[in-house]
């Protein structure tokens, strides 16, 4: 039988819970981003740590407790005409700590960077219960090592995030999505590449089944109109682009499979190699970041047979964790060394 989840109401109580833990913990926020193999051990819930510590719209700075719901942060920022530029994929219940721990980043990563790029400071608790601070609340900061990047995307394996500082961004005044019919995902890539190779400041370049290639422009109204005009000319060799009548981008933030029994894989590759990978796979659920991100459903337990490529594939939904190709052994050794030092007692093993 599992113990009731612990939900400490502050950083000090959370640190104490970790110090006194005698067995591996599963530290979660909303628990909306768990991947295969994760979530084992007694549950330690971070949702007792909530609230905005500081928000200065004129400095583009937000400092917030890690258990704060993502949805409430989106609302707080929107009230001031701002947003998290990296468009974090959101599910009901997602917390901002989970966003940071998963480096969860949406379509605008192409233009504005990932969660790790917007994250400018944080506090976390290591496996011994020490509270560590790194970075700060200013966007230019090279004082000491950048543990902010190390912690972003570390999925709770090195420590528990308690407070996060983000650089915010203005919500663009105007946006426009061009749609271009494409025979299949691979056929969309040359059009996306052409759009990304010119001075159009593209903020989204994706493909969805049944929709074709999607290219988003954002900014001041006149600028968007002018860039769309010249982008249409650039895209002419690939077909006749039309304007999207609805907003397809939320679909790209949360790729899903039609078959709930299927495994979901996330592949990161060079866009120039995406066509070769797609040739070895069934039709993907989506393509994003100009072809650098592929989400594809595969039968449960199956490993894709992929040609050699620069990048990696990871099973993000399914029974067993899997990464192809096997990670670089030297990098894996360094990862293990960091885990041994930040979590010598193996408290965060619940996030393997």
């Amino acid at each position, binding site marked *: 039988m599992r113990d009731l989840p612990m939900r400490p109401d502050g950083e000090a109580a959370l640190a104490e819970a970790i110090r006194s833990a005698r067995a591996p913990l599963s530290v979660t926020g909303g628990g909306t981003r768990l991947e295969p193999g994760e979530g084992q051990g007694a549950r330690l819930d971070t949702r007792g740590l909530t609230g905005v510590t500081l928000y200065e719209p004129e400095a583009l700075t937000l400092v917030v407790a890690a258990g704060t719901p993502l949805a409430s942060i989106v609302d707080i920022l929107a009230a001031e005409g701002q947003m998290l530029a990296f468009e974090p994929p959101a599910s009901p219940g997602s917390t901002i700590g989970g966003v940071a721990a998963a480096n969860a980043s949406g379509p605008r990563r192409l233009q504005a960077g990932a969660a790790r790029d917007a994250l400018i400071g944080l506090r976390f608790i290591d496996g011994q219960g*020490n509270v560590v601070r790194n970075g700060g609340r200013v966007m230019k900061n090279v004082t000491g090592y950048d543990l902010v990047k190390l912690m972003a995307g570390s999925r709770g394996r090195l420590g528990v995030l308690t407070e996060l500082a983000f650089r915010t961004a203005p*919500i663009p005044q105007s946006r426009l999505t061009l749609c271009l019919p494409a025979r299949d995902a691979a056929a969309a890539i040359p059009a996306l590449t052409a759009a990304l190779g*010119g001075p159009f400041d593209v903020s989204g370049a994706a493909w969805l089944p049944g929709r074709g290639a999607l290219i988003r422009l954002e900014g001041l109204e006149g*600028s968007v109109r002018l860039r769309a005009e010249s982008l249409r000319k650039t895209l002419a060799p690939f077909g006749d682009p039309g304007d999207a009548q609805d907003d397809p981008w939320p679909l790209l933030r949360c790729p899903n499979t039609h078959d709930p029994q299927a495994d979901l894989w996330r592949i990161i590759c060079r866009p120039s190699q995406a066509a070769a990978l797609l040739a070895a796979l069934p039709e993907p659920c989506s393509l994003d970041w100009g072809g650098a991100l592929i989400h594809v459903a595969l039968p449960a337990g199956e490993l894709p047979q992929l040609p050699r490529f620069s990048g990696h594939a990871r099973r993000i939904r399914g029974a067993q964790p899997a990464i192809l190709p096997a990670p*670089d052994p030297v*990098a894996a050794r360094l990862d293990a060394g960091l885990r041994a030092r930040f979590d010598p007692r193996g408290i965060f093993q619940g996030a393997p």
Partner: protein
Amino acid sequence: MEMPEPDAAVLARRDAIVAALRDAAPGAVIDDPAETRAYECDALAAYRCPPMAVVLPRSTAEVAAVLRLCHDERVPVVPRGAGTSLAGGSMPTADAVVVGLARLTEVLEISPEDRLVRVQAGRTNLSVSGAVDGLGFFYAPDPSSQLACAIGGNIGMNSGGAHCLKYGVTTNNLLGVTMVLMDGTVVELGGPMGEAPGFDLLGVVCGSEGQLGIVTEATLRILPKPAGARPVLVAFDSSEVAGACVAAIIRAGILPVAIEFMDRPCIRATEDHARAGYPDCEALLIVEVEGTPPEIDEQLALIREIALSFHPVEFRESRSEEESRRIWLGRKSAFGAMGQLGDYICLDGTIPVSALPEVLAGIGDLSRRYGLGVANVFHAGDGNMHPLILYDANAPGDLERAEAFGADILRLCVKVGGCLTGEHGVGIEKRDLMHDQFTPIDMEAQMRVKDVFDPHWLLNAAKVFPLDISASRREARRDAGSADAA
């Protein structure tokens, strides 16, 4: 500047070590004291110490052979890009081997389809953009030393530049590296989109000041060149109002590529030196936007409307290439102009933009208390300040007074919620001020990372962390070394 005593056991084996280095990297070793002098300092020229030897390898394999040897012999190593660090990041110690990137300058791959370029790490920042210019691309981070500084050094210090408000700093534009660890192991970090399975090791290597490994190759994100750019100059009769104008522009949702700020002492010095024709005022802003001419007009119309609401002394919009050049002329010659007035120390603290009036007033008070002049020029959009403290290097005690003044300014930056260094790095210069920004626990967490990458603390060891904090780790190496010898 206090540095640890050189390791006598290493110095005693000098000749044998140099001979072994020559075997590891034939024709790449410099040990003649007349020549090693050229490597005794970087751009923080107040502190100098010639190294035991210098190696300028021609390949990753040679770097690996040299590091393996130094690791086995427990010889300290100081990595060096182009030696343009303003923080003493590549200043040697007498028992150290400097490993320089000067011969690693090739472009290895250009992929416009993947919007990346792969280069050897000794290549200069500007020549990376040069290599992709013909294809319509550029490499965004643009430190002011970009003509000379090496990409390897940019990665070590996570360098920024004037345009990072829009494009970010090195870490936001770095996709991967080939790096040699201190034991000679070669590792590839990063990948497409900068991502690799596992921890973001690339992210922590960038900005680690050469303490985790020596980067020999880098994969960099390149961007399509904008159609054009145009600056405006806005002059104010108060620094506070200039600061408020910056906040209002950002608040309005406009993100210029650069917002630069100069105060009266800086304006006066650059006028005497460069004669850019700047107005007589307390503070001026240079705001630059990018795009096609109509896009630029659209942005500048909004900026004009905001700026005029703050009643500037002057709002000067460039109408031609020549006018744009003149607007930038004073800013770009600011450091040279200050150099005409005397010796100076350039600081690099960052503050929250909202604290600008408080910090400028505080700097003015400190200037009177120390009896030393100071001029402010900085990247206002991101709060990265570059106060320049004037002193006389020939006057006894003046340098120490200027350093104490500078330390107080940086403490002020930390006090208002900022940091010691925004883009130059800690090096030796700000090493002992780290106590003002971090607790011992904060620094312990950072040093654990070094323990993993460089367990014997051989790489650039007496930097970044205050000597008292890193002492036990650095001394453990020597104790182990003498135990091995015994």
